[in-house]
């Protein structure tokens, strides 16, 4: 029983990475209507930038995260301003193909700049160690991750529901033309939202560096997981993304524990079931 509860907690921390990526993907899709295939690559870049600052140059942990966010936001600025902007009106196939091109570029660019697989840098002092929960040792860092994820969820909810910015974003998401007609500067808004989504992904990547290996190709793995999360939760729905992330994270953790060979497969089966029963996703429609 305790093992199950413990594994549930492990799943929760796994879920938070997924949530951070899926949140950015969902916001970008909801407002811009773009499904950014390269979103996982932005997560990967966030991890690499943070690793470089913190692991290679010894910069303060929090500062490293900030620098990583800025770096990835700049990359995403270039992506949106010079490429994506020109294909908004085209079929979604073009978006997927274009962002797929970016995946290829980022994957090799990362190899060229940083080489192959990396070691995991040491944990920042204040997070090292573990505390006993459910009779086992649970890493403090993972608690931090869970806290950060929930913090982002609350923060996003506050921004979208309670601030003027949030209202504009929600309005533009539901009716772009109308928003433009009442004076919202759509191009700038889109760029800003895209960068914000990218920053969320980078945040996830940066947070992952002390515990997960940083290597080329993690972007590709992560985007698949993000897609599964958003399909389960409902495309374009933030609440769905959060719930979907928790479902996928917890199921993966239980899968690793109970059915080690098939833990990856289980996630897809769950996705298939959701699709059969409620195609728009749990919160979609």
């Amino acid at each position, binding site marked *: 029983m305790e093992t199950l509860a413990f594994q549930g907690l492990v799943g929760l921390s796994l879920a938070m990475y997924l949530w951070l990526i899926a949140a950015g993907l969902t916001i970008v899709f909801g407002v811009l209507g773009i*499904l950014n295939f390269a979103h996982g690559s932005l997560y990967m870049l966030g991890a690499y930038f943070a690793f470089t600052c913190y692991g290679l140059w010894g910069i303060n942990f929090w500062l490293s995260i900030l620098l990583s966010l800025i770096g990835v936001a700049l990359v995403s600025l270039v992506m949106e301003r010079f490429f994506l902007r020109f294909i908004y009106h085209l079929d979604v196939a073009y978006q997927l193909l*274009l962002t797929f091109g970016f995946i290829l570029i980022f994957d090799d660019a990362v190899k060229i700049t940083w080489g192959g697989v990396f070691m995991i840098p040491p944990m920042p002092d204040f997070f090292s160690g573990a505390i006993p929960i459910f009779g086992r040792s649970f890493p403090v860092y993972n608690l931090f991750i869970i806290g950060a994820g929930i913090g982002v969820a609350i923060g996003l909810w506050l921004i979208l529901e309670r601030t003027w910015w949030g209202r504009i974003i929600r309005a533009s998401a539901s009716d772009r033309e109308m928003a433009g007609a009442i004076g919202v500067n759509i191009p700038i808004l889109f760029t800003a939202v895209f960068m914000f989504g990218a920053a969320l992904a980078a945040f996830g990547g940066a947070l992952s560096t002390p515990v997960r290996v940083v290597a080329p190709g993690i972007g590709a793995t992560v985007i698949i997981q993000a897609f599964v999360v958003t399909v389960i939760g409902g495309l374009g729905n933030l609440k769905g993304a959060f719930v979907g992330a928790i479902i996928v994270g917890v199921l993966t953790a239980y899968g690793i524990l109970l059915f080690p060979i*098939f833990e990856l497969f289980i996630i897809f089966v769950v996705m298939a079931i959701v699709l059969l029963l409620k195609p728009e996703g749990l919160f979609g429609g």
Partner: protein
Amino acid sequence: MMTRKGVSIFGYGYKKVSNLLLLLLIVVLFFVPQLAGKYPMYMAMHILILSVFALGFNLLLGYTGLLSFGQAGFYACGAYGCGKVLILIPSLLPGIISGVLFAGVTAVILGFLCIRHTRIYFAMLTLCFGMMIYSLAWKWHTMTGGDDGLVGIPRAPLEIPGIFSIDMSSLQNYYYFVLIVCLLAIGLLYRIVKSPFGLILQGIRDSESRVSFSGVSVKNYRLIAFTIGGLYAGLAGALLPPLENTVTPPLAHWTHSAEPVLATLLGGIHTFSGPVVGAFLFYVIKDVIVRFTEYWLICLGVIVLALVMGLPGGVVSIFEQKLIPWVRLRFAGRSLH
């Protein structure tokens, strides 16, 4: 493509010229073993296999308007299916047929789940299901050999028991087998695309509601198209094990699904021959780039960006929109229409 009546190049109709070129190409392909040797034979086989793979993909994208990022899953079904049968029954035909059938059945089942959805969802679903197949291929050691995959697959003889048996151990013999099978498959798909069924698919691409209002069940036709795409991916996959003697999980990974996507992008989405031209270009470009740098993905990525931003119709579109009209204006004595 509709024929443009009354236009001639060098006195021959446009259609006749392209048919002539096609015939020439087929003849050249038949003489590759004699004229060129082992490496070009090998490359030609890979190009043919990718052509079949990409043509199936483009039946979905160019003709039906469905972008599938999961075709590698069916390719892997074909490869693993063929491989496993060949290890048990060293005879080429049962192996190939098993692979194709396995891919087809999988396509029907997964298609049923995917086809009810709109374009974005559809693309995502195919991606995810393709990766589902990858996860099975990678982890299910007992069935698929896991990370190592299937090894020691024989290049079995092509035989019908009691009637004939052709040894395939020489690369040349297998080359001719692959060539003939691929040409037949390509020809068959051409017939399908030019049939009433093919026209309905294009209607679905252009306006699915209008097709509904013409009395056609869009879902059923999409499912059929998806199955054909899966069968062709399966055929491409099934031709691989006898050639390489091994089958490994990366064949099912979505980055492998990207190959027919790229080939089609390169060659052109809107024509039948686009994917074939693109397959050829894909291998040529890869070959060239790899001589200079190991970082060929980034070059490919840049090419993709250039194509999507600048040339959505692919290379064949330059041919049709710029070159042919130019040639016509220069050499034809009559007006264009």
